[in-house]
């Protein structure tokens, strides 16, 4: 085995991608392919009175116009959508003459060309009977629900406040946000070899067998989900989409392959999004800055018909050694599509609220916010009393502070001034994300000629999962990276898990490693000797076998073999953060330097230093890239992004990339990344804890805290816009 396990390696599929050889879902060529386009509802709620398709059918090239009359047999199953939300009543557009949110598809035009489909869709006229609605959680008609059961608590938090020397009681607000992966969400459905193949850029190819088959009354094995490459998921592609079953049903009825690429403007109304939320944070500390108690109450927007559970309370009590804690989460139902997971779904908004509140507490105490965090470091979860598998958050803080030059920080806002008169602000915040895992089924075949093929569970969505798998195979087997064939994201090759929640690497790396180790063991038995340093395929060739194949089922810590059966049936099954003997999280500390122009209040993020404890770093290059991406998301959340809704109309007003403002290069200063890089082998064979999500957690809060340090202004909502600092 090579000593340099976390080498800085180029992505194993970089060449394919740069040359355009990697085929994404919408790139798949099919003879006789039909193109589809949806007709979006122009009302926010109501009933469809009539749909006139005559003009659309007159458009040359239009093959068929589907409406709810054609699709009423489609069933809505709990597994169909929101794989990780609480199962709800569900709603599948175009199965009834009913509109539950603006922009949902009410007709599907299928044509020989994309142009004809678009023109046909524009020619469909729909008459509606509108109903009253509320599209925002603050509206009168919004539906608040009682607090859900199972809130985290320990000790008597209220009582602790009575004895506190310092208290903060603040409310932070978070807007609706939209993922906007560059690869648009698309579905192509085609019959091949007797099965219905669904090509969709997804994080969950098994959702089609698990959800779509049920919706269509088909056997799960009659569907195959194919998604070898996904062009960014960020949680928006983690289940069956609103259009998936419509396209699949169209292909079934027309007996021809059908493709639909959803326009970005429609995706703001059909795909998931990060819901609006409000966060009341109360913190109590003694005179030395010891955290006596925290009370954290959140309210989160939801749809009327489905459940996307709120989980804001899961991480904040684990960040520090609180003496007592009480959490509370509620949801409010409005007339929109169902929100869902968006990178660090609840951890990011929760870290915004709680890490900014902690900064406010540091201010009240007159304490350095880094020192306050270090003073409340803990190796034990305050809620369960269990230890953490590994926690190097204090090291992240210390290393980050040194690299960032935290000694420049003062508690006097605006004290640091740049040469051009800009006020310089320095801020810090921390984050955590559960170290989760999911089962995998892996087949590894080594050929005597050196080819090495692995089929396993997991999706490549730009995070570098193929490269993580390759790293383990190169490490254990010394195989040639150029002779690797890594088959993932395809239920035709292996059962597929939902790849999300930062459990991709922590599941795929141990699976690949276990398979590689088993292959070595079997080869050793074949050769009857301990393996030498020679390439493994040369040693295999000497046995005169053309190849050696092993299969491994990887069951994550705390689960049994049943997990494999659930995986095979396409059901989500994950573990973490609580394991039998410990809790496992990745940790991060972010330091941000902002410059604020005094006359206009313009905020520029000049520099961010982020130090992460994600267990073993599988590949320095892709890991740093993950963190940089997470920090850019943090900049976007802190200063740029919000979905705007006009309550009179519902829907998202700024539904394109011009008006949904994300950071451009000029908005992103230097981002320096470092890692603790201590393998967490109590958690899994590879020592990996996960990185993609934790990278973003706390990043926005560090920037908000830096803005306060520069201006003395405590802005308690996101994004901070220019008018907030005038």
């Amino acid at each position, binding site marked *: 085995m090579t000593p340099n396990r976390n080498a800085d390696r180029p992505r194993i599929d970089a060449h394919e991608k740069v040359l355009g050889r990697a085929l994404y879902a919408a790139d798949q060529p099919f003879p006789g392919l039909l193109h589809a386009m949806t007709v979006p509802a*122009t009302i926010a709620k109501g009933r469809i009175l009539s749909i006139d398709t005559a003009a659309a059918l007159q458009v040359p090239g239009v093959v068929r116009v589907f409406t709810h009359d054609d699709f009423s047999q489609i069933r809505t199953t709990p597994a169909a959508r929101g794989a990780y939300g609480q199962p709800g009543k569900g709603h599948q557009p175009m199965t009834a003459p009913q509109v539950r949110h603006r922009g949902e598809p009410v007709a599907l035009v299928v044509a020989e060309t994309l142009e004809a489909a678009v023109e046909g869709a524009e020619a469909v006229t729909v008459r509606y009977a509108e109903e009253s609605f509320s599209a925002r959680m603050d509206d009168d008609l919004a539906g608040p629900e009682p607090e859900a059961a199972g809130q985290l608590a320990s000790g008597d938090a209220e009582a602790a406040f009575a004895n506190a020397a310092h208290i903060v009681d603040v409310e932070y607000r978070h807007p609706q946000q939209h993922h906007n992966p560059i690869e648009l969400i698309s579905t192509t459905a085609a019959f091949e070899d007797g099965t219905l193949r669904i090509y969709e850029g997804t994080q969950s190819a098994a959702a089609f067998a698990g959800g779509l088959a049920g919706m269509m009354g088909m056997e799960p094995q009659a569907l195959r989900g194919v998604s070898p490459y996904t062009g960014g998921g960020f949680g928006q592609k983690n289940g069956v989409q609103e259009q998936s079953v419509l396209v699949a049903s169209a292909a079934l009825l027309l007996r021809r392959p059908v493709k639909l690429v959803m326009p970005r403007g429609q995706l703001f109304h059909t795909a998931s999004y990060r819901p609006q939320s409000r966060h009341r944070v109360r913190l109590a500390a003694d005179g030395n800055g010891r955290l006596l108690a925290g009370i954290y109450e959140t309210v989160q927007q939801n749809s009327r018909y489905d459940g996307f559970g709120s989980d804001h309370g899961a991480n904040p009590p684990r960040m520090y050694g609180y003496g007592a804690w009480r959490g509370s989460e509620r949801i409010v139902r409005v007339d929109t599509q169902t929100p869902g997971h968006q990178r660090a779904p609840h951890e990011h908004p929760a870290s915004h609220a709680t890490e900014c509140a902690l900064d406010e507490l540091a201010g009240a105490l007159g304490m350095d916010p880094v020192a306050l965090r270090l003073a409340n470091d803990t190796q034990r979860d305050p809620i369960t009393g269990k230890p953490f598998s590994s926690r190097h958050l204090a090291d992240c803080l210390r290393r980050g502070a040194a690299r960032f030059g935290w000694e420049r920080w003062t508690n006097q806002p605006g004290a640091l001034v740049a040469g051009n008169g800009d006020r310089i602000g320095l801020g810090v915040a921390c984050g955590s994300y559960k170290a989760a895992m999911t089962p995998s089924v892996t087949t590894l075949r080594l050929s005597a000629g050196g080819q090495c093929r692995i089929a396993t569970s997991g999706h490549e969505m730009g995070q570098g999962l193929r490269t993580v798998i390759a790293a383990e195979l190169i490490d254990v087997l010394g195989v040639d990276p150029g002779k690797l064939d890594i088959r993932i994201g395809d239920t035709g090759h292996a059962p597929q898990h939902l790849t999300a929640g930062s459990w991709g690497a922590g599941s795929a790396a141990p699976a690949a490693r276990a398979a590689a180790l088993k292959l070595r063991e079997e080869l050793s038995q074949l050769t009857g000797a301990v393996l030498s340093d020679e390439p493994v395929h040369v040693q295999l060739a000497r046995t005169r076998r053309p190849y050696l194949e092993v299969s491994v089922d990887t069951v994550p810590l705390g689960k049994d073999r049943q997990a494999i059966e659930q995986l095979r049936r396409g059901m989500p099954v994950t573990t973490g953060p609580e394991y039998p003997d410990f809790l496992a999280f990745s940790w991060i500390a972010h330091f941000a330097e902002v410059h604020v122009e005094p006359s206009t209040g313009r905020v520029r993020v000049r520099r961010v230093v982020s130090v992460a404890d994600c267990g073993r770093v599988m590949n320095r290059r892709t890991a740093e890239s993950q963190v940089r991406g997470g920090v850019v998301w943090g900049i976007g959340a802190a200063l740029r992004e919000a979905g705007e809704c006009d309550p009179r109309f519902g*829907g998202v007003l700024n539904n394109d990339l011009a008006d949904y403002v994300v950071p*451009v290069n000029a908005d992103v200063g230097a981002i320096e990344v470092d890692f603790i890089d201590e393998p967490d082998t109590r958690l899994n064979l590879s020592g990996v804890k996960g990185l993609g999500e934790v990278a973003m957690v706390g990043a926005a809060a560090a920037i908000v805290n830096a803005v306060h340090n520069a201006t003395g202004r405590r802005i308690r909502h996101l994004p901070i816009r220019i008018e907030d600092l005038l």
Partner: protein
Amino acid sequence: MKPLSYVQVRTAREAIEAFVAAGESARYIAGGTNLYDLMKLGIEKPAHLIDIADLDGANRIDTDGDRLFFGGAALMADVAEHPVVRDDYPVLAESLSKAASQQLRNMATVGGNLLQRTRCPYFRNGADGTYPCNKREPGSGCAAIGGIDRSQAVLGASAACNAVSPGDWPVALMAMDAAVELQGLDGTRVIPISELYRPPSRTPHLEFTIGREEIVTGISVPKTAAGRNSTYLKVRDRESYAFALVSAAVALEMDGDRVRQAHVALGGVATVPWRGRPAEAVLRGETLDRGRALEAARAAFAEARAGRHNAFKIELGARTLADAIINAGSRNQ
């Protein structure tokens, strides 16, 4: 598929004849950066495109006479990078280089840019019938008034429309007293740029005074020493690739350290490129300091009226204009 005819022509005369022959659904196209966008949004539905990007001499840039001359089809990128424009008229160069992206500036023409349509989200977003808009559907109403009006105008709005004129280049040209050369059926006419734009009043769908078949064949700017003491300051929701929340074009004719005549125009805040005459009056004969600049800038916004979410544009606009006045003054050698 919708039929779409497309012809390339070599002279303005040919273009106009082709346009008139094609009738109501004809549109001129040059860079196409706004027209294609509006076609994709379902706002523009031309059946005939007459390409005027390659009219003979239409991309001419001439700085030799007593006026700068830019052919209507000169590219934004080429004008922005022209040495005379860059060195002697920074307000013009900066207004171009801070607009859109390099890719768009490589396509878009300085003539077409004068006629760019508003970025009002209710205008752009509602062609499917969701949002009423008097610009798009005359008489249907204005959803922006009383709505999410953060981006809307605080100057020049009417009860029918508060959409912002989106451009940067027209604002700089307004400050510099540019003239626009138009060619139509009856030959060529030249108008001051201030006469190109119509206030929304009760007919916000009528945005320009240009005749339907007329072509912007050129833009000219009187040469002035004030060009060197000039700047275009643009404040937006991100550092690049965004339209202005507020912008200010300032050029100063100086007499020693006193302002003989200021040229001030505002963008991002008004329904048309907005000349800031009240600011010019305050500055006349004065020396420059931050207080005087802010006083002048506030005068430019004296008539501003805020909606629900855009009041900040009045204060931000004044501070931005004050910064621009100071910047322009600091370029006085």
